[in-house]
């Protein structure tokens, strides 16, 4: 299979030059590699996206796909996984929808550690609604809804997911396609909840391309099994644009933890279970 096989023929509506194209390329390549290496069956892959600019990836990937509501990718992914644990779920979210509307789900998906992969397109901006601040926008940012400048400090999604118990935590860059591709493949293969933050400058409303290129670096000689080291790295960048900012990318933390769907001794692939409920027997159980 070739990456082009994943094209749908739908016309793109992203701004020309949007960095989301870089993520799309990486996702297609990662899926192609995983399928060609027989690590994943193509028919078992399910994409899930919410609502924001990023969500349009739904129309550009020829795989099973559930396009859910704004901020609800995570619970939808969780349900699909429980509905059929053999499926490989790759979910997509934006920073606004994920950390504002859907924040509760972030905390709990990390905690559940169901075997799914979640990619957040982090442009530090509500872009599709024409550029308002999100919970990860830098302090002081002026937008039409925050003319006085953002008052709070941004949340740090990596530190947050570390604290909440995610078992795979990583950061990539939309314009570093080869490394992002590898990161996505590793995330999909990890057993448990895999969190991938993707720095994705919005060229129309929050163009940090230059800043990120100047401050980004790849984690090397980093022990991904050490929680304290990972936390230190997660906290290294505070999502504001400082002269001396250092932005690490790569896998921060990876560990083996029990996954949510393994708690049921009888967990099956539901739609293949041929049920023939015995009404008389069921009735007798309820009889007082």
């Amino acid at each position: 299979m070739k990456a082009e096989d994943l094209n749908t023929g739908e016309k793109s509506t992203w701004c020309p030059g949007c960095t989301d194209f870089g993520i799309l390329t990486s996702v297609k390549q990662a899926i192609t590699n995983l399928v060609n290496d027989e690590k994943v069956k193509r028919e078992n892959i399910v994409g899930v996206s919410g609502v924001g600019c990023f969500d349009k990836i739904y129309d550009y990937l020829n795989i099973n796909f559930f396009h859910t509501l704004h901020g609800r990718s995570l619970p939808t992914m969780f349900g699909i996984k429980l509905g059929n644990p053999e499926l490989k779920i790759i979910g997509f979210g934006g920073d606004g929808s994920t950390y504002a509307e859907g924040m509760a789900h972030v905390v709990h998906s990390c905690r559940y550690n169901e075997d799914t992969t979640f990619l957040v397109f982090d442009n530090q901006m509500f872009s599709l609604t024409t550029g308002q601040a999100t919970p990860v926008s830098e302090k002081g940012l002026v937008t039409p809804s925050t003319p006085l400048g953002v008052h709070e400090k941004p949340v740090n999604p990596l530190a947050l997911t570390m604290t909440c118990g995610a078992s795979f935590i990583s950061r990539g860059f939309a314009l570093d396609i080869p490394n992002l591709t590898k990161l996505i493949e590793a995330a999909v293969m990890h057993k448990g909840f895999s969190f991938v933050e993707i720095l994705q400058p919005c060229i129309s409303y929050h163009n940090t391309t230059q800043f990120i290129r100047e401050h980004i670096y790849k984690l090397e000689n980093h022990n991904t099994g050490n929680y304290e080291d990972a936390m230190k790295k997660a906290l290294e960048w505070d999502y504001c644009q400082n002269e001396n900012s250092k932005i690490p990318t790569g896998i921060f933390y990876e560990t083996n933890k029990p996954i949510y769907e393994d708690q049921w001794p009888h967990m099956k692939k539901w739609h293949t279970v041929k049920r023939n409920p015995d009404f008389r027997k069921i009735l007798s159980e309820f009889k007082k």
Partner: protein
Amino acid sequence: MEKHILIGGEAGKGIAKTTLLISEVFTNAGYYVFNYREYQSLIKGGFNFNVLKISDNPVYSHDNSYDVIFALNQDLIDRHENDLKEGGFILGDKNLKGKNLIGIDVQAHLEKLGASAKLGNDILIGALAKIIGLPVEPVVKVVKGAFKKKIDLLEESIIEGYNCVEKKMELDNPDGKPKYFITGNEAISMGAITSGIDMYVAYPITPATPVLHELASKQVEHDFIVVQPENEIAVACSALGASYAGANTMIGTSGAGFALMTEALSLQGMSEVPLVVYLSQRTGPASGVPTYNSQGDLKFAVNVGHGEFVRVVVAPGDAKECFYRTIEAFHLASKYRVLVMILGDKHVGESNYSFDDFEEPKIKPSRYITEPCEDYKSYLITENGVSPRSVPGQGAVVRATSYEHNEYGYTTEKADEVIKMNDKRLKKLDDLKEEIMDLVPVYLHGQGKKLIVGWGSTKGAIVDALKDLPDFRFLQVSYISPFPAEEVKREIENSDEVILIENNATGLLGDIIAEQTGKIINKKVLKYDGRPFTSEEIVERVNKVVK
């Protein structure tokens, strides 16, 4: 013959358990029993009670006057002494005060046997059996059978209680055939299992919680899963995810949780992923009176979610209907890929009803999943609007979406496609309406020329009241959406007088009838104090309204 028993006291004192044991003795002997439960939103202390109506004829409701008050504290007597019937008795500890009190020195009897204080209720159960005219053996059998391990001196305590009082009443002999004794919530759980449920998702909330507990306790044996996620938004979204993946899925909640689910219920409308919702109403608005009853969410359910799409709402009137309506809900949801809501409430969900038997359901469970075909279109436009359902993993690319879309599921904003897809989704109504006609959407009880119209849990009290309202017949509306307009209109037109009875403050079914049939019902009997109607109350208030 009818006997009415009030059993109550502080929460946490075994009132529910005592009630169930007494009921079981009667239903085993072949009596029909109805049990109404009233409790406060607290765990220990406070005040709660159960009301039993026992008869050798079918009964579906309780009354507010009692032959026996089984009192576990003084509070119960102070509140309900005046509800004692002529010739009735209060049974309780000798330290209590009240008229016609049969006071038992529970402490002395326990000491005599060397039994622990826990067996105090069993002494009183023994005494109740004697007073009301039951033999002691079946009581011993039922109470002993309720505990997994042997409890020392249990039998002796019951017999001690039995022997320390005199028989005061006579019971007619029933048919001897044991009855099913079941709550609406148990029947809904049973219906879900009979429908081949794969996954139940819920966040705890009274009065829907018993379904969560019931199904959770049965999940391993029946090979399905029960999941309690972080909130009702996650409940509804994950349920749609699971259903998209092929699982037969149901969610359950009450008003406050239902409010949080609404965005996802609208997503059901667009994505056409099958979903069954159990909505058990309680007294609102907001947190309201959370452990009490109401029929206040009818229009909320019928109109839930933004946008225009097909919503099916079915309202069972008793526990037996809860069972069959749940099976219908699963069937319709999968077959038409629609949202189906089972609209119950605290009264039908938590009251115990008794029945001779349950007939084998006619509907056989199916997920309506088709074999994958070439060039599969998730939203294929078909004659009846229903696109063949496929699930991921079978080979076809399966799409579900919250955006308007073309047949493949790709996003569209084109005017003609928007129209086509709206038409396709709404087209499903035609076949749905026809199928619902076979599912008894309305039912007429009685023969009178005058008409009572109602829905849901008021059925029991209205049906029990009909014997004292010979001029009336009762039109029970069970399918509220799609609405059986012709049937309802015809009955209204063929009646000398029409009265609407609802357990809410404004008469919500009346509004729907007006909208759907143009008929306005001006005479209303409404009750909105958090308590269900009794049949006595219905007789009195209907007579007042027609006078």
